[in-house]
């Protein structure tokens, strides 16, 4: 028993140093040399400043302007935001795309609250896209456009979702629909090895590509 205690106490120290410090620090060192950008979170720069991570979705919203031309605020003084028609919109999120406090809405499959959330998301999507996609029906709306992801920061939308939004973005930016569709193809992450997972359009990459075109 005494021998077990001494050996165990020493083992706590040895294993903590080896597996708790040496292993993660060595992995960090090698990873930073081999894949520096990826190890640091795939950060995306624009004009020398970080504007996001290509693995983390973000909201493309702008402040709602009041009649006086100033941003409207809610009762807490925070600006009221609305989707910017010039950008592709990410999936709905329980956290408002917060990658430092991740959680899920935790509503079960038979909850009334979840149905109401879906209804609201569906109505908002139809309201946003119908002006440029007349006759768009509820059953045409891709499921990713009205459901929230597990992470709350899903960087992708489905291709079908992007094709619908393309008509709005093309009109708002005065770019040809063909060109927008081509950019969607260019910024789609395909299935790994051609068959693992699902293809998804990277919303941040796509929107940055659109902005780049506008500048050029």
């Amino acid at each position, binding site marked *: 028993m005494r021998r077990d*205690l*001494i*050996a*165990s*106490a020493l*083992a*706590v120290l*040895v294993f903590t140093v080896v*597996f*708790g410090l040496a*292993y993660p620090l060595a992995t*960090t060192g090698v*990873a930073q040399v*081999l894949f520096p950008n*990826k*190890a640091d*979170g795939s*950060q995306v720069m*624009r004009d020398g400043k*970080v*504007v*996001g991570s290509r693995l*983390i979705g*973000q*909201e493309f919203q702008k402040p709602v302007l009041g009649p006086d031309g100033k941003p409207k605020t809610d009762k807490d003084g925070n600006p009221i*935001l609305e989707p910017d028609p010039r*950008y592709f919109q990410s999936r709905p999120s329980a956290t408002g795309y*917060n*990658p*430092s*406090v*991740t959680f*899920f809405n*935790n509503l079960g*499959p*038979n*909850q009334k609250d*979840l*149905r109401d959330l*879906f209804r609201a998301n*569906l109505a908002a999507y139809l309201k946003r896209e119908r002006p440029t996609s007349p006759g768009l029906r509820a*059953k045409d709306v*891709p*499921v*990713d456009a*009205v*459901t*929230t992801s*597990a992470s709350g920061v*899903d*960087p992708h939308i*489905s291709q*079908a*979702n992007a094709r619908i939004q393309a008509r709005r973005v093309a009109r708002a930016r005065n770019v040809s629909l063909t060109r927008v569709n081509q950019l969607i193809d260019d910024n789609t992450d395909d*299935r*790994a090895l051609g068959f*693992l*997972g*699902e293809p*998804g359009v990277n919303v941040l990459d796509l929107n940055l590509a659109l902005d780049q075109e506008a500048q050029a």
Partner: protein
Amino acid sequence: MTVQGWVQIAFYLVVLTALTPVLGGYMARVYRNERVFLTPVFGPVERLTYRLLRVDPNVEQDWKAYARTTLVFSVLFWFALYLILRTQGIQPFNPEGFNSAPWNVTFNTTSSFISNTDWQYYGGETTMSYFSQMAGLAVQNFVSAAVGMAVLAAVIRGFASRGTANLGNFWQDLTRTLFYILLPLSFVGALVLVSQGVIQTLSGYVSYATVQGLDQTLALGPAASQISIKQLGTNGGGFFNVNSAMPFENATGFSNFVEILFILLIPAALTYTFGRMVGNRRQGWALYAAMAVMLVATIGVAYAAEQNGSPAQKGAQVATASANGTTGGNLEGKEQRFGIASSSEWAAVTTAASNGSVNSAHEAYTGIGGAVPLVNMMTGEVIFGGVGSGLYGMLLMVILAVFIAGLMVGRTPEYLGKKIEAREVKLTLIGTLFVPLSVLAFTALALATHWGTQSIFDSGPQGFSETLYAYTSQGNNNGSAFAGYTGFIQPNAPGNAGATGISFADLMGGFLMLINRFVPLLAAIAVAGSLATKRVAPVGGGTFRTDTATFVVLLIGVIVIVGALTFFPALLLGPIVQGLTPQLF
């Protein structure tokens, strides 16, 4: 369901099966103390470890000595981890200045990681310093996995023993598991994950203005090194709150494949190790077959249920068909890059193994889809199960199956030529029935008292399911969750200030995880000790064979009856009710 979905599931099973004899054979050599190709690298490290620990690896231990060392080691590590998690305020590698969680949450977390459960009431990126993650939690990811595998090695030696009571040396098994199996696989795995975009850095969180000028903060940290061992060691505790759904934990379809492969890699290969060590590979493959059949069935049910969509979706007229370019189905709580097939597959695999990491939100699964992870856990985590613990749990089920077969034909049951007698059967019953009974009792207590119900988030049957899931998961050392169930209330304050725990949920859960780790562990090692000294009867015409399809079917039957049927009434009240009705609550 799509062809492509089934192709990736089939590909997974083929790769897993192909790797089983490769890794299984290697592990058999490790546990026979033979020379392996990594000996030139880790041989000196191994010998140095024995010197530092002042142990003699050549001292053989009988089952009592082996069990005692295992317990002393685990108890001491429990206190060490508790101490680390309580002292976050004075730690290095704490760029966000996190305080420690309250003591009751720390009790739960410590018990959770020592017992290889990795149930998490806390969110990693809002609670844990990098030091706690690395030197506290990740160390346990290695050590608790290695304890399970070491004990399994001892148990197998008991089954294979030709008359000696010795089961091996705990320190030798532990050290060889850590250095020859877990460390090299984790290191390679971590680098593969980083190549896909999983983060590995010591920098603090990065804040910036997004394209549209909104504030966003990236939580960073040394994640990949922890994620690869979290998957390999059937731990499952996420670096982030949303676990492997977070792109920084699981960035692409390929990283997803690697992580899901890592969940079952070792538990599957150990069946082959078992066959090799008892000198009959067919015995190992028979156990593999029983596990694989149940796994495939549960993947299929989950995939079909999730592709069908949820009542809430149908109530809101949300499309559930998979047209070109959409996944269709119940994508609520699932990531676009994984879709329905990879998410359902993961949900079944992570609960078949006692891993418990998730790449989608189980709470959002349909009634039947959500019943799959519950049923997998309720079988006692023997469908591959935890590393080591899954197979020693399965061996107890095998003894039960052999015993029942013996009763049916009216002769003394034998397994691997050893007579199964009253002592082994009694110990087996303790090992197999203690977990389900304690889970039912704790669930009942949590539902019948206001202390328990304060942790519930959803109304109606889903609230019941959350509770059942919480105690089933903790009680079977799984660690996945219907995450609405909470034991930790965190205000959105810097450094996690002012957070409180819910004592009932934290303490009950922590206690349940500990007893349900160590009672079956002790039962298995006692059975092995009892079998070790028995004579081996030669195989004859009347021997009941345990390496045939008939036995596999019998074994599955016993597992379903002991595991799943114990819980059938409880399942009816929660997930099955929701699966059978479009009613909303």
